[in-house]
């Protein structure tokens, strides 16, 4: 339903929303419409920078209870208004952009910590809590979620759940989908459901995994119970420089396939190594830089570290010792402040993907070839920073120093790089994304990635959200 500014239907909807959350928690102010028109998606930044017509919501609402979220979903369904959930708004895929107007549902007032279970080591919290706030509160009690992404201060717990987010300690502690025990979800029709109290069972499919990564298209996750961990007695790092990526990858693979459990492991390609070594060590060196860390009880760290060092030393190497890793840990968020981070007028994209050890190097080289052979204005860098027993994630990036001045031309170029790189990655056994999600940015490639399996997702979407109110136009689902 179009809600023309000044129309009385707009006022009627406003009143209904205000009846749910209070008049102070509904906004149609231009200041808010601007602030919610741009997330961390490069195209939304470009649009803002160039003064283009950015997508804006008709209403921004701030519910503070699950019941309010339920009532808001019912209103959205009644009027068939798009409802886009906004946590921190720091997603890089355009997932929180209100591309069809309607309602932005900001979750940040759903920010209570409801229970810390010191016996089972779990925490239950509302999903609008900024992850760093949850983490600080747990640290005061001697615990941690061990979810430590660079966006920890920017993003909400719900944002990580919506996009299957990860943190730098994922290699030992898992991604968010490994941390979630159970969730409360408001379905598009307003029904409030709870998933089972434990995530391991044989009582039907795991509904947690249905909503994890659904990016606000299937409902609103309002509450989650997560695993927590005691703060480790010891956390220790070590760094090596290998002559090339192949040697570094082999060391990393062996660490994982020997079933050691580093909490952190980061391997940088030669291009990124040059940049990183210069920044961290202040010297110029060529090669492939690997830093890893173990945490936990001191004697366990000693043992695992000893075995990992032996694996690395069996490869041609330069031993850089502990300091570079410790320095990186202490400054791990600094690189994301604007004086260090890529930003306009640069065009840049993070092509994070994941594959098995058998395929991941081919994925790396395939995307690198695409960038270097087809886009001479771009450079390609990459690192491998989330490792599994069977493979690892590639955090590849392309960077163009000066984006085309014409926004249309810039977006055509940008999307072409994405399409070509990700098709090359998929051909070699990679996937569209590892931990940032799909959003608006990659939705068009979802049917290609999943093949006939995508129809399963579409049917679920249609069954749960027949009016297509929940974050329409994202994830590759039907647009409005």
């Amino acid at each position, binding site marked *: 339903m179009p809600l023309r500014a000044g129309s009385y239907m707009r006022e009627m909807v406003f009143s209904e929303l205000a009846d749910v959350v209070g008049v102070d928690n509904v906004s149609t*102010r231009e*200041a808010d419409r601007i602030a919610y028109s741009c997330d961390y998606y490069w195209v939304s930044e470009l649009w*803002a920078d160039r003064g283009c017509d950015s997508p804006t919501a008709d209403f921004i609402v701030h519910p503070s209870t699950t019941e309010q979220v339920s009532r808001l979903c019912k209103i959205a369904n009644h009027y068939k208004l798009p409802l886009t959930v906004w946590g921190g708004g720091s997603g890089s895929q355009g997932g929180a952009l209100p591309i069809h107007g309607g309602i932005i549902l900001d979750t*940040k007032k759903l920010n209570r910590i409801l229970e810390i279970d010191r016996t089972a080591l779990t925490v239950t919290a509302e999903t609008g809590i900024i992850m760093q*706030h949850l983490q600080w509160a747990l640290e005061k009690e001697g615990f941690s979620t061990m979810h430590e992404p660079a966006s920890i201060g920017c993003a909400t717990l719900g944002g990580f759940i919506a996009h299957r987010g990860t943190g730098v300690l994922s290699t030992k502690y898992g991604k968010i989908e490994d941390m979630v025990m159970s969730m409360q979800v408001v379905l598009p029709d307003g029904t409030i459901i709870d998933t089972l109290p434990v995530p391991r069972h044989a009582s039907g499919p795991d509904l947690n995994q249905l909503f994890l990564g659904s990016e606000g298209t299937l409902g609103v996750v309002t509450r989650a119970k997560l695993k927590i961990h005691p703060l480790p007695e010891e956390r220790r790092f070590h760094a090596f420089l290998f002559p090339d990526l192949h040697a570094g990858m082999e060391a990393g693979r062996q660490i994982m396939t020997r079933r050691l459990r580093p909490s952190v492991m980061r391997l940088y390609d030669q291009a990124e190594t040059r940049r990183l070594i210069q920044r961290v060590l202040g010297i110029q060196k060529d090669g492939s830089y690997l830093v890893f860390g173990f945490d936990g009880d001191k004697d366990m760290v000693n043992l695992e570290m000893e075995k990992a060092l032996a694996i690395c030393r069996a490869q041609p190497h330069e031993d850089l010792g502990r300091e570079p890793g410790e320095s990186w840990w202490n400054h791990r968020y600094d690189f994301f402040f604007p004086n260090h981070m890529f930003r306009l007028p640069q065009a840049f994209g993070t092509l994070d993907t994941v594959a098995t050890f058998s395929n991941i190097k081919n994925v790396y080289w395939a995307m690198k070839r695409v960038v270097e052979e087809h886009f001479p204005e771009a450079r390609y860098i990459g690192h491998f920073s989330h490792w599994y027993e069977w493979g690892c994630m590639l955090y590849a990036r392309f960077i163009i120093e000066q984006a085309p001045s014409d926004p249309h031309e810039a977006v055509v170029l940008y999307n072409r790089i994405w399409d070509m790189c990700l098709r090359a990655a998929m051909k070699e056994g990679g996937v569209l994304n590892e931990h940032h999600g799909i959003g608006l940015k990659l939705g068009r490639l979802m049917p290609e990635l999943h093949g006939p399996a995508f129809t399963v997702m579409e049917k679920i979407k249609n069954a749960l959200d027949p009016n297509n109110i929940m974050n329409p136009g994202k994830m590759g689902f039907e647009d409005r």
Partner: protein
Amino acid sequence: MFTESQAGTIDACRFCFMCRHVCTLGVTTGNESDTPRGKGLILSRILQQYTGWNADLVESMYRCCLCGMCHAWCVGGYDMPSAVLAARRDIVEKGLEPAAARQMRSNIEKTGNPFGLPAGDRFARVTCPRPPKKDASVVYYVGCDTAYHQPEIANAFIAVLQRAGVDFKLLPEETSTGKPLTVLGYADAARQIAEKLAESIRKTGCTVLVTTCPASYDAFLKDYSGLLDGIEILHATEYAARLIKEGRLKPSKAYPAAITPHDSDFLGRYNGIYDPIRGILQSIQGVEVREMSWTRDKAHSCGESAGVFSTLHPELGLMLAARLVDEAKHTGACVLATTCPVTKRTLAAAKPDGIEVRDVIEILAETL
């Protein structure tokens, strides 16, 4: 309108989320336009002339308490409060400031205080047991909030000065420093008041100017450029800590309490002064200093801004106060010691339960 540095800040902050979790107002309201990123997005549109000021955007610029937390947190050192202040000056130049801002300006120009209370009542409740000396080299600038709303702070500081044997005087023609006008964007009006007040101060021949008000302290130091040369400017906590160190002041009575110190925005983040309040508390027998998790340059703010924020947005001021009280209570302290009258008054308005709020100078005076 914006300096190169401010334009650089807008350019950097508009797409950056890295301080949103520490932004005093942003965390409290959960509203994106209240964060430095939100401000940056709006100001970027203004700067690039994609839009002009309207009531919504103006209101947003006055919904910042200028606490400086974002600046203190930023690895790149970007200073959004400076850009917001520049925006307010632009808004004022165009005559688009909120009515409440105009009212504050009018009050200050007519009565010398932002409340519009009679100028003649300024020192009505400030008492000096011994008359101040006319040839004293120390001037005590009381400040509007203290004089009109919390004379107990002034009376405590006067007791401290007199106990230390410091000859001091008040300024009979004391008015606002003009700091609220600076904060509101009235640069020219603020300068006019500064010139007039500075002349009164210079005429006294004083060598030391001391105040219990952090906003006034910041005004004298930074906004009165070239007007008070040769006069040492001190906050009352600095001066009292110095008197204690020199042995001129010795707290003799015990004050058995766990006290948590609060760092004022204008003393702390704006001027790097953190130690005097702690030095004073540690000199008092029986005091157990309990630090908040958020302390020194990362202290929670109560929206000082020379009283502007809590005047324009009393409901938001109460929310900030509740947040600070909650943080203070986590220490287990029974007293929250402040150095800023605006903060003390904002906290009092929130009716804190289970913790007493006192200016550290009041605590000191009780122990002499």
